């Protein structure tokens, strides 16, 4: 009996021990980087940060989006590449996976960039949904909620514009998401933004948050393209909302702050928050970038570095130079004939003066005249610069787009920098992803469509005055399409405009540019199937989400 008792005690102790050990399986993360509780401010901050950053460690290392290079996955870069690369504005020589197909308009539903943007937008939307499901209105909460609703709408706008018929989610859960038609999504966006007109603050408290004018501008953009999105044009509403923005607090930046660069150029420089930020700044949605604290490969670093070569540039205040995008010949022709006599330039920002328009910040950096704009000892030939453009593999087959730079407003022209940027690699240049200038062009086009050519001309004149362009012009369709490009090149919107003008793809698109359909400029027009007016839904979500593919793909 005694022995049995001992055994029983042993068994009892053992069972107790086992139970305790099974409870060890109920772990809780102890890592200080892994947090279990919702923090409204910190998630709110992330909702904005998704526009600028690609993940949780800058510039890369913990990306938000899978199956795409983290640097490429940036909101700015993804939108920009899909809006710019297939158009008449620029050419890119890179062969990144999926990029040649974007450039030559031969993409399909497996394209990595088509997929990358789609999932970037849904990541941002899911995050916003999560915030909205958990946020409270206390304190700053009501503003935060309205702003996050705007950010969600802003992301949905790009889904509407580029993918059309997409799943709609306003909650984070595994339930099947309904696939909205383009019209359904348009209607939802219209209602959402109109509701936000009453909810967003009238004045922003921070350069990098939005006020109600961001929603009005987005409504104007929605209505301007309403015919594309829904089949029904809404020019008057576009003009009305554009006018509200024009009359609002965000004014065109017309007076140079530093006295070295033109006001137009100052909007795209390292300390541009001084002209696009503030209560009266031209930017309506400014995306923050900083050389130290907000680093990303796909923000302004991409915009600045991809337009330059590392060894041949005027110091743009970044050590990066990726020899990526440059002017297409069709874009150069918006400024000057290709058979124009060569120019002799004083510096990289001399082309606007030569062409009589501050916006023409384009230049070849190879065959420049003196003074030399390059640190490379070899390139000292005093060749004059000729307009040219070709889809060759070399970056030097055309002129560069030097609009975006990391230099500061006070820095002198030329090689040296007197005001040092925050870091030597990532420019501090913030990205005004919507700016008041758009209201002027929107207003002009809408009025033109409504038959008010004079009102259109007045709005355009305001932009031309700011650019110190004294040339006369006549407003017609071709002019408007070109003017959109002159004002907004390299700002990530060209595709929208070509589609709206019926020049992108489909039977009316009789406008050929370098690389369109794979043909060079001299090979002539390729008719592009109308399906290319929107991108396909990525194959992966057709399968996972049980979706129907866009027509033609």
């Amino acid at each position, binding site marked *: 009996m005694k022995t049995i008792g001992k055994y029983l005690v042993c068994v009892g102790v053992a069972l107790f021990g086992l139970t305790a050990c099974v409870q*060890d399986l*109920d772990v809780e993360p102890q890592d200080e980087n892994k947090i*279990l509780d919702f923090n409204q401010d910190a998630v709110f901050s992330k909702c904005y940060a998704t526009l600028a950053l690609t993940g949780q460690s800058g510039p890369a290392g913990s990306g938000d989006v899978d199956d795409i290079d983290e640097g490429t996955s940036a909101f700015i870069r993804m939108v920009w590449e899909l809006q710019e690369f297939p158009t008449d504005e620029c050419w890119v020589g890179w062969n*990144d996976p999926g990029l040649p197909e974007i450039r030559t308009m031969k993409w399909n539903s497996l394209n990595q960039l088509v997929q990358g943007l789609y999932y970037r937008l849904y990541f941002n939307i899911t995050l916003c949904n999560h915030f909205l499901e958990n946020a409270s209105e206390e304190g700053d909460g009501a503003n935060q909620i309205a702003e996050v609703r705007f950010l969600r709408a802003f992301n949905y706008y790009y889904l509407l514009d580029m993918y059309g018929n*997409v799943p709609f989610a306003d909650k*984070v859960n595994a339930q099947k998401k309904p696939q909205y038609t383009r019209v359904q999504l348009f209607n939802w966006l219209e209602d959402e933004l109109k509701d936000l007109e009453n909810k967003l603050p009238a004045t922003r408290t921070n350069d990098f948050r939005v006020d109600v004018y961001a929603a009005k501008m987005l409504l104007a953009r929605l209505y301007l393209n309403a015919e594309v999105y829904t089949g029904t044009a809404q020019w008057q509403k576009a003009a009305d909302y554009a006018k509200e923005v024009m009359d609002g607090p965000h004014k065109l930046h017309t007076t140079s702050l530093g006295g070295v660069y033109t006001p137009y150029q100052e909007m795209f420089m390292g300390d541009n928050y001084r002209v696009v930020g503030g209560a009266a700044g031209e930017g309506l949605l400014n995306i923050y970038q900083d050389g130290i604290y907000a680093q990303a490969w796909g923000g302004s670093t991409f915009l600045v570095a991809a337009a330059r070569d590392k060894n041949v540039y005027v110091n743009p205040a970044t050590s990066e130079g990726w020899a990526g995008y440059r002017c297409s010949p069709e874009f150069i022709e918006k400024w000057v004939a290709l058979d124009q006599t060569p120019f002799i330039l004083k510096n990289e920002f001399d082309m606007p003066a030569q062409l009589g328009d501050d916006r023409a910040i384009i230049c070849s950096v190879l065959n420049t005249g003196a003074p030399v704009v390059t640190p490379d000892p070899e390139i000292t030939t005093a060749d004059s610069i000729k307009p040219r453009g070709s889809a060759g*593999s070399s970056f030097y087959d055309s002129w560069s787009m030097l609009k975006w730079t990391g230099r500061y407003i006070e820095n002198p022209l030329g090689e040296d920098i007197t005001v040092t940027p925050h870091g030597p690699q990532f420019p501090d240049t913030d990205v005004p992803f919507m700016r008041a200038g758009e209201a002027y062009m929107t207003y002009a086009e809408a009025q033109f469509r409504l038959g008010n050519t004079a009102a259109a001309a007045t709005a355009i004149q305001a932009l031309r005055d700011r650019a110190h362009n004294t040339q006369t012009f006549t407003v017609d369709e071709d002019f408007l399409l070109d003017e959109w490009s002159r004002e907004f090149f390299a700002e990530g919107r060209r595709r929208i405009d070509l589609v709206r003008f019926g020049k992108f793809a489909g039977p009316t698109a009789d406008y050929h540019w370098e690389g369109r359909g794979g043909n060079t400029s001299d090979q002539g027009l390729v008719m592009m199937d109308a399906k290319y007016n929107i991108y396909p839904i990525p194959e992966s979500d057709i399968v996972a989400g049980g979706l129907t593919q866009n027509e033609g793909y």
Partner: protein
Amino acid sequence: MKNNLLSFRAVLLAFLLMTGMTAFAQLSVQGTVTDAANGEPIIGASVLEIGTTNGTITDFDGNFELTVQPGAKLAISYMGYKTQELDAAASMNVRMGEDAELLDEVVVVGYGVVKKNDATGSVTAIKPDEMNKGLQTNATDMLSGKIAGVNVTSAGGAPGAGATIRIRGGSSLSASNDPLIIIDGLAMDNNGIQGVSNPLSMVNPSDIETFTVLKDASATAIYGSRASNGVIIITTKKGAQGSKPKFSYEGNVSMSNLVNRMETLSGNDIRDYAAALGHNTTKTKWLGLYNTDWQDQIYRAAISTDHNFSVTGGTKNMPYRFSLGYTMLNGIVKTNGMQRVTASMNLNPSFLDKHLVFNLNAKGMYIYNRYAPDVVGAALNMDPTQPVMGGNPKRYDGSDATIKGAGGVNLTEQQIAETYFGGYYQRAARGNYSDAAWPYTVNRNTTGNPVAALNQEKYTSNSGSFVGNLEADYKIHGFEDLHLHANFGADYSYGKSLTSISPYSFSNFYYGWEGWEETKKYNLLFTAYAQYMKDWDDAGQHFDIMAAYEWQHFYRDGARDGWGSYPANSMNSDGSAANPKAGQMYEQGRSQYKWMTENYLVSFFGRLNWTGWNQIMLTATFRADGSSRFHKNNRWGFFPSVALGWKIKESFAALRDNNTVSELKLRLNYGITGQQEIGQGDYPYFASYYVSQPHAYYPVGNGNVMMVDENGKAVYDGSGTPVVDGDGLALYYNYRPDAVNTELTWEKTTTYGAGLDFGFLNSRITGSLDYYYRVTSDLINVVNVPAGANFRNKVVSNIGSLFNQGVEFSINAVVLDYGKRFKWDLGYNLTYNMNKITKLNASDNDDSYYVPTGGISVGTGGSIQAHKVGYAASTFYVYKTEKGVDAKGNPMYYAVDLNQDGQVNGEDRYMYKSPMAPVTMGFQTKFQFYGFDLGMTFRASIGNYVYNGVLAGGIYNVAPDNVYTNLNGGYYGLTRNAYNTYWRGMKSDGMSALVWDAATNAYVDGGAFSDWFLTDYFVENASFFRCDNITLGYTFDQKVTKNKCHARIYASVQNPFVISSYSGLDPEIYGGIDNNIYPRSMTTLLGVSVQF
């Protein structure tokens, strides 16, 4: 190896001899004790006159002398062999048979005792080959090519480099495919740390007694949760009971040489090539005047040495073994080397009349490593016309090599090299640091000087590890059939790497870099089981049952920091004053991080063994595992198995007494194993947030202001200084919700297997043949989820399935056996494995779906492999090429428009070959001739394919547009292979596209094809036949050593040759993508082993 018949003969002989000699009053016995299986002497065997304390042990040739009472009985025993009790005789020749029971108990399976002869599963145990081992500094070296179904591929030739072990192919896609490694009963954590590539490197190979590889379901299922990829059990050497201390020393010195190198163009060749291309002096002036062989500059002959010392012995109740090892291993890349000190201890005390037995193991290790920077590729790409040191005072065209600096000051390349590059040649460019003292920088578009990198970049690591366990086994008094067993184990490892890079270096010019990263981990284990065994020997019945509990805790944490600094002599931009930040930390690049993670496994399991009539064996196991990596609701996995063995030989009278067939056994097994090494962290089911790290802040927020402490380290408790940007704007941290999958559960692999063990001619020929079919379902797979449903577009889920099936065959034979005079052994094994994915995503028949994998560094990157349903994992996914002629009749390669849509794009890629070899073979042979022995080991791999990234990258550089550009500022070094391939018809922009012309229904030339580096042209058949090792040894006769010691000297040459049609350096590359691996050297070694 059992040889009952021979043992029987020996007994008989001894008996006969004895009966004739009983007349003598005192008997002087002289005898020899040998291993019945291989005839080798058994050293240190204990010979005891039964009933007395009179005894001795055998000497180095297995001989003993003992004077005993007439009619005495002798007990001859030795660890691992069946103890024999024999009548004493004047001359005894004792042949000891291995004690299967004992061997099994100690070695073969964990958690209890299984007679090897009764084993029902595919279990392969090998003892390290002491004779033919070459330079073995990692336990993986000993496994390579030895066991059918086990493939070991080293990561390259660097000292301490890891190796990939695959048992019966890979059963997972995104989860781990590494086998479970168990060292002395302690299941190891497979995560490497700095300086310790995998758990196998924590054991000094010379301490290893046996390797046991469990391959099939029945053998592995008892390890349930972690055994889907096989189990490797390592048992270290132990002391022998009641033996005198035995000292053993093994040492060697070796020299490694690079024997196989890439042939490159000389400086003269490059200059000729530039001339042939018609380059004008604008370009050619950048050519240097030298003929530098950069490979000669980075490689060396490396001398290494390895010493191991051990003491083994035992008192009656306390066997012990201690060992010490020191290894210094130098790499053939200059500056690269490793030093290691190991120590181990094993004690086996027994108490209470052997009812309570302890087994205490402790192993410690310290490793210092100095890694080489990645210079293997740089040595191929670096311009051979340039010097190692200095610059070119005159260029190729005779002009002064002057570079323009800031403010119009020009310096010569020589001056720049001396002032700014630490004396080394680097191609210079204008600086961009706003620093008058540093007006130049390295041209990042050129190749960095590899010799400079070796000397200016220092990567080191210090690592230590401790593995220890205490096992206790108690046979219950009065009820000896039941015993209780407990095992407490722990492994602790620590590794810290240090990086120090000069500000004059190519990689971190100007700011330099100082950094460290450390990882700590420990793993605790507790196992307890009770086992009841009962034998009814007369009936040939055996029965045992075991029930067990196991608990494991894995913990890891780590931290890193790194920063550059402004150079001490930094000036402001106009040179008028010193930079106020000179010498200070440059905070932009600083990277700090700290993490920790842990997981638990709790298991209950049991096993039943039954042997009936000594003919039929049945093993059934069941295991339940709980993993903390899964949500409560799906945390437990249940892993049953059953196996059946049939001793055919014992079942038929005709076979039972037949010596021709010495063994014939059929095995059938079925079982399920699990996988929870998901590769996605330890908390996939938690809704949690990940906080943003430095350089990922944003100026929007309210309460989440970013704070840092005085070291610049992020703090979240509000105690530090707020972070503001250069314009005074406050910055905020943010939270990102992590993807969450509460449904995630065990991946399960179901295995069906059949095997036949055979032995012929008194076990002179033995072998086995196995077939297996393994299906993995609920594949842990990172798959797309519907947009908007989760916080990532890809979430780790249980979707998909794949299978592996294969055949394994191994055979060992003693071809000739003339005792000590001449003996010839042969061993051969063959493995065939095929792997196929059967489901990948939610859709059942989506032909277009694939998962890209296998990133390459050529071109702008991209991937060269894909997982796709119907194909092996990681099959090459490439464009198809065809050879043709261009318009001028020159040979030309075309990329084909496979889908005939008029263009060659991503949709024309097709699934080509697999990087995994379907057939692998190992082959060993050994000759012994008197004291000499000669051993050789070979391996072959048939049908493995490799993407020759070195060639593709080289071809890019050969192209006239790329070999020189004014931006790159110079010429590339070129490999002969790339140069020759290029002239066979590659165009400067690669290949041409061959597109389908619908109008003419024919293929036409579609112009340049830019993705030429993604074609099957570069996927080469890399089948190979490699000689791993040849060893010639001599064992001194005992007359020479006067019985004082056993001594052997040997010379070995490792990796003398490899035969392959692969055009790159080395065809053996795990994963099949050749991006310049650290070359495997040929090593010549002289060694000595002494026991006394």
